[in-house]
């Protein structure tokens, strides 16, 4: 040693680090800083049991086992632990110990101590905040995904994210968002790149098919940020399928209300025109009957002979009066048909909807099977392409398509074999199905009226109906939240398109 013993002693006494010599679980010597940390003076601790600085017996014994075990194994112990001041208050201390003479525990150990309460409290707070964050992320109903901007790798994915996009959270980890094909079409990749390019949040609502084949409406927010020099892209994704469904349901209800109103107007129109028309005949020909009877009476009064009466009355009895009666009868039948039609339409509007996911391929297969005979008889060919699924009432939708196929058969061209093609496509929550034929088509001026009630466009045409078929079809499509329209030119065939929601 170069230093003189008194100087060494001074250094130890005045060191900013607390120091103590412990032997047989007793403080043999301590410096001023060590005593100060415990809120006392050295003379009060020297000779005291080391048990006194531990909160309780159990922690004292646990520390003893850990610390002396480490000293014997490694020659050194270091650790953070709770300690007790003389006034009973607790603090965090960082304790480093070693044997005074290595290999000779009986000579005691030397301990260095620092009060690290401030650092420890801050660290504990950080740990708490971190635990809370983890908990929030794990149990958030919003899907949260973190990606490195540099290589696109996913570094965090919570359960909600896995639930929404399908799969397990651990499968999402490591996935490179630039390589996920399902991100391209819904515009997710574009949104991600835009957020990184502009450095600002990007929001979008889109529809994606999850890895379970479920169609999900998602509200997505891309948040770019930087942490320790690494650019990170956060994607928060909420499943708004139900909200979108509720919105569509509201729109459907609004549409239904509007439809009901239109129907009421139609009813008023039908009552004012279609029912009035036969009434004019009933009134007019009743009057003619009455006039005829008066004429017969006059003839009977004035006739000179039975033969004369017979000659005068016969034209009335054989032609004029029966013709008037026939008009009255036919008008009554017409009114009956109109009222029946109105009732059928009204019933179609009241039927309970049972919406479910529909495999349209199966529905068309069934329709095809049911109409096979009619197609065979018409020497027609029905070609059904693979159809996307939709969500609607199976009974009503089956009826819609069998009605459309039935129309295609009815309005075929006599001079060429009938060909009907059914195709479909889907996108953005909607599926569109087209039934195309090479039949007589619909002249432009009739396009707007074919779905209206009691419109038989050509009574001398190839088919006769009750003027309700397409009105009912439109009714059912609209009740299922869809639309129907016709694209056609006279002579070039008809194309009926039915649009239905997919979720």
């Amino acid at each position: 040693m170069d230093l003189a013993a008194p100087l060494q002693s001074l250094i130890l006494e005045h060191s900013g680090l607390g120091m103590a010599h412990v032997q047989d679980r007793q403080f043999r010597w301590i410096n001023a800083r060590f005593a100060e940390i415990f809120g006392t003076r050295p003379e009060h601790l020297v000779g005291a049991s080391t048990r006194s600085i531990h909160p309780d017996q159990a922690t004292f014994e646990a520390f003893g086992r850990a610390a002396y075990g480490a000293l014997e194994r490694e020659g050194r112990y270091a650790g953070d632990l709770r300690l007790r001041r003389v006034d009973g208050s607790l603090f965090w201390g960082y304790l480093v110990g070693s044997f005074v003479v290595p290999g000779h525990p009986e000579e005691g150990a030397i301990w260095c101590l620092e009060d690290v309460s401030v650092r420890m409290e801050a660290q504990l707070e950080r740990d708490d905040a971190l635990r809370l964050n983890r908990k929030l992320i794990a149990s958030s109903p919003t899907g949260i995904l973190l990606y490195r901007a540099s290589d696109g790798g996913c570094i965090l994915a919570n359960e909600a994210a896995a639930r929404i996009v399908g799969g397990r959270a651990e499968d999402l980890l490591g996935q490179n968002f630039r390589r996920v094909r399902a991100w391209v079409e819904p515009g997710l990749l574009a949104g991600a790149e835009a957020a990184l390019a502009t450095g600002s949040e990007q929001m979008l609502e889109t529809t994606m098919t999850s890895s379970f084949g479920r169609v999900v409406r998602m509200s997505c927010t891309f948040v770019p940020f930087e942490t320790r020099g690494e650019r990170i892209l956060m994607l928060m994704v909420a499943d708004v399928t139900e909200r979108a469904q509720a919105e569509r349901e509201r729109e459907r209800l609004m549409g239904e209300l509007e439809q009901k109103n239109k129907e009421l107007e139609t009813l008023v129109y039908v009552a004012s025109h279609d029912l009035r028309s036969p009434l004019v005949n009933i009134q007019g020909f009743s009057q003619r009957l009455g006039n005829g009877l008066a004429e017969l009476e006059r003839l009977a009064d004035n006739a000179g002979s039975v033969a004369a009466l017979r000659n005068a009355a016969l034209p009335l009895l054989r032609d004029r009066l029966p013709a008037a009666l026939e008009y009255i009868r036919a008008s009554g039948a017409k009114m009956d048909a109109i009222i029946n039609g109105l009732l059928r339409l009204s019933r179609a509007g009241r039927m309970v909807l049972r919406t479910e996911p529909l495999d349209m391929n199966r529905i068309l297969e069934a329709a095809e099977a049911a109409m096979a005979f009619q197609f065979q008889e018409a020497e027609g060919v029905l070609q059904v392409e693979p159809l996307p699924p939709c969500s609607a009432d199976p009974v009503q939708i089956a009826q819609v398509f069998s009605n459309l196929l039935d129309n295609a058969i009815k309005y075929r061209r006599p001079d060429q074999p009938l060909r009907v093609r059914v195709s479909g496509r889907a996108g953005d929550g909607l599926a569109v199905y087209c039934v195309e034929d090479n039949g007589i088509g619909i002249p432009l001026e009739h396009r707007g009226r074919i779905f209206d009630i009691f419109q038989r466009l050509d009574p001398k045409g190839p088919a006769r109906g009750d003027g309700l078929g397409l009105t009912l079809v439109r009714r059912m499509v609209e009740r299922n939240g869809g639309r129907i329209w016709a694209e056609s030119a006279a002579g070039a065939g008809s194309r009926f398109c039915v649009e239905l929601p997919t979720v």
Partner: protein
Amino acid sequence: MLETQAQGFTILIAEDDDGHADLVMEQLQDAGLRHPIVRFRDGQEVMDFLLPPAGGPARARPCLLLLDINMPRMDGITVLRRLKGDPATRSIPIIMLTTTDDPGEVAACYRLGCNLYITKPVAFQAFSETIQRLGQFLEVLQVAAP
């Protein structure tokens, strides 16, 4: 033939309902109208007569059209629009004679250039009076040759 020439013009009736056509013609005759009457069963038939496709023979005599609205193949509104939109037929007087009294439809017909809009009354008495008055009106009407 001489007599009909003297009467001046032909009355065309476009009406799909046989009963209505019968009643209208009866009432016109009861009013003393002696003009020749030609009846058509829908809008297409009357169009084929007035504007024959592929340059058929043109109408020889002046005429007047009683036009129903709700008819198959071609409705009365379309017939009205086409006839009033074609210089060759624009001068033909057109009287809408229909069961509908919808104000929107009445206005639409006047906008398209119909000369008169008459609603067929359901009650026979009123029907008879309306058509007979129409007959008397037509009796004194002068229609120019095309």
